[in-house]
């Protein structure tokens, strides 16, 4: 309890609260603009936070991360265009409700579900923290290596219908992390004798290229669009309170979000899928799903907003990011000399509580902002897409150039931006590259000490957590092949990746 109070005390500082306010409101606005999204915003702002104190920089980016999905629901419901990729499922039921004249009800339910799940997921984390503090120190080199490998396997097989592409892109990420001077024998790897390659590829440069610059290039090279939307009329507060009619679904969606968010490499899409399926199967009116069902909307929004808090578990406890945004957050931690992992829970548990408290406050700020700002946000989402491209390109420069004032970094980011554009046009995911880069580095670092005490293969799995993780990896791979075999046998084609465009946003 003392640590919890100490953590809350760390937040009671003008700079921290201001950063939280800016991050939370900025996140909603960024999430509401289709084509920007939290990855672009965090990538651009990341270098700007380097000069700030650790907690100030972190809560600002945490604000963007935690609040963008609130904003992303607005265009998903009103103009059938998700503000962020994870709001795609919201369009299924949210937009038909708008077409029926129930826009206010849909927005109220979406915001209400997001708020309830955001708070529930953080409370779950606070309750889980003492358990984490006990379990995290049991993770040695072998366990962290296996947890990182598990994350990589999950991120590959979670891309159903694109497993091979996800695997090759994850491999590319691991390879990119090995380029440059290696720290053990001090030899150069794949530098081709070029001095500018000796320090390797910077994560932030690649992230800015793949997420921000690629989006700018895509917006600039595609036809213009500027959506028109009618204003929202009525009491948003009353609309939000209607979420209590669907409290069972909000709680179950939060549960799925927390569970899936905790597993590296899984994330919002799987949580939403499970929550939506559960809601449909237990509904009295399952045929309405996909045609404007409030239950479907609540299931989708509650699951996706529970994930950001839960995704902080593997990041904080083990230093293992589960998706691209937490990978970016990891680099912020490192820059501020906060090393996530078991020692954080032992030595700086008050800092962890401060982050949890910040997440609760950001949810409250966002809901208060949403009560009064939906019509203001409608004006912001009308920014013409090509002008938005100009804005993102200008802001991306700050992100890349301010790192090391290097023209080479900018050229590398531009090259990855062009590569990211091709990935987006091909509807292929960029996330496996980023996770491969981060998790590959962790795996290489941990594998050497882990192997030092291994004489036969079985030694690697002699400790219970390592054995459990190894068994989980094996089960996932076998299970994946078994499901592929069943699909072929039952002649049920796996989802064709032409059927969705979630990676083009």
């Amino acid at each position, binding site marked *: 309890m003392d640590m919890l109070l100490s953590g809350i005390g760390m937040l009671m500082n003008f700079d921290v609260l201001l950063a939280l306010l800016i991050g939370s409101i900025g996140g909603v606005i960024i999430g509401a603009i289709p084509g920007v999204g939290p990855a672009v915003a965090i990538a651009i702002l990341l*270098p700007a936070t380097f000069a700030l104190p650790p907690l100030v920089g972190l809560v600002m980016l945490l604000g963007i991360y935690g609040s963008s999905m609130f904003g992303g629901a607005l265009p998903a419901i009103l103009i059938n265009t998700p503000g962020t990729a994870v709001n795609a499922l919201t369009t299924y039921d949210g937009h038909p409700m708008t077409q029926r004249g129930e826009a206010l009800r849909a927005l109220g339910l979406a915001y209400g579900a997001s708020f309830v799940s955001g708070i529930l997921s953080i409370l779950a984390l606070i309750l889980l923290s003492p358990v984490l503090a006990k379990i995290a120190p049991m993770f040695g080199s072998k366990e962290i290596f296996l947890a990182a490998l598990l994350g990589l396997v999950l991120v590959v097989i979670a891309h159903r219908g694109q497993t091979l592409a996800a*695997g090759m892109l994850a491999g590319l990420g691991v390879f990119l992390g090995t380029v440059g001077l290696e720290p053990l024998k001090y030899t150069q*790897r794949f530098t081709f004798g070029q001095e500018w390659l000796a320090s390797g590829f910077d994560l932030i440069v690649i992230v800015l290229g793949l997420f921000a610059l690629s989006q700018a290039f895509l917006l600039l090279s595609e036809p213009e669009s500027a959506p028109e939307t009618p204003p929202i009329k009525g009491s948003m507060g009353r609309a939000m309170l209607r979420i209590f009619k669907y409290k069972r679904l909000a709680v179950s969606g939060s549960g799925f979000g927390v569970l899936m968010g905790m597993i590296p490499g899984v994330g919002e899409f799987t949580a939403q899928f499970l929550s939506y399926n559960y809601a449909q199967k237990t509904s009295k009116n399952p045929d309405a799903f996909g045609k404007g069902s409030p239950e479907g909307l609540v299931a989708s929004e509650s699951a996706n907003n529970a994930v950001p808090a839960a995704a902080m578990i593997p990041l904080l406890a083990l230093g293992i990011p589960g998706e691209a945004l937490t990978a970016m957050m990891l680099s912020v931690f490192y820059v501020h000399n906060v090393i996530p992992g078991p020692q954080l829970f032992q030595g700086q548990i008050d800092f962890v509580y401060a982050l949890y408290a910040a997440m609760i406050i950001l949810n409250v700020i966002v809901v208060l902002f949403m009560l009064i700002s939906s019509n203001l946000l409608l004006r912001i989402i009308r920014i013409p897409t090509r002008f938005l491209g*100009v804005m993102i390109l200008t802001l991306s420069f700050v992100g890349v150039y301010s790192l090391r004032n290097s023209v080479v970094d900018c050229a590398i980011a*531009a090259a990855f931006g062009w590569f990211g554009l091709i990935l987006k*046009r091909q509807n292929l995911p960029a996330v496996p590259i980023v996770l491969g880069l981060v998790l590959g580095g962790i795996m290489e670092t941990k594998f050497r000490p882990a192997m030092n005490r291994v004489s036969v293969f079985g030694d690697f799995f002699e400790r219970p957590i390592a054995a459990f993780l190894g068994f989980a990896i094996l089960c996932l791979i076998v299970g994946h092949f078994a499901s592929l075999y069943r699909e072929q046998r039952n002649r049920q084609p796996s989802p064709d990746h*032409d059927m969705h465009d979630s990676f083009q946003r």
Partner: protein
Amino acid sequence: MFQRNARPGELVFAAGFFGFSVLLLILIPWQTQWVPRSKLFTQPAFWPGIAIIVMTLFSAGHLFCVLCANRLPGLAEELAAWARALEFVLWFIVYVWLVPIIGYLIATIAFTCALSFRMGYRGARWMGLAAVFGLGVVVLFNGLLGVNIPSGDIYELLPAGALRSFLMTNF
């Protein structure tokens, strides 16, 4: 896993990625070193080798699937779209090149106005918006947040004094 339809350009992408992976695989002996009397997992080539083998195997599988799939028409249009985006890569590089010469403020306002003009926003209102946006970005990041962007050579032409120092620090 086995797609029924391949997007236009997917074959080019898959073949290019596979070719790149094979090239890296061939280059391993020249681009990494083998250190004598060291265990396999401590060799500098170990992790790049694993990564490239993963890339090669998965990209070979991906290419095979694309070859087996029904390829949708529109290859030329897709390749043209990839090439069209290179124009904006060039815009970005020119902007990066200009900043250390003419300074962050002038380069940013010139960039936002010129690119907005190129994208069809040609009225006085749009030019004004582009200029205000450029100014806002510079003031926010360089002036208020103190982001590390060096001053342009152009400011060296100004007479020494407070104004020059102010411009060099903030713009």
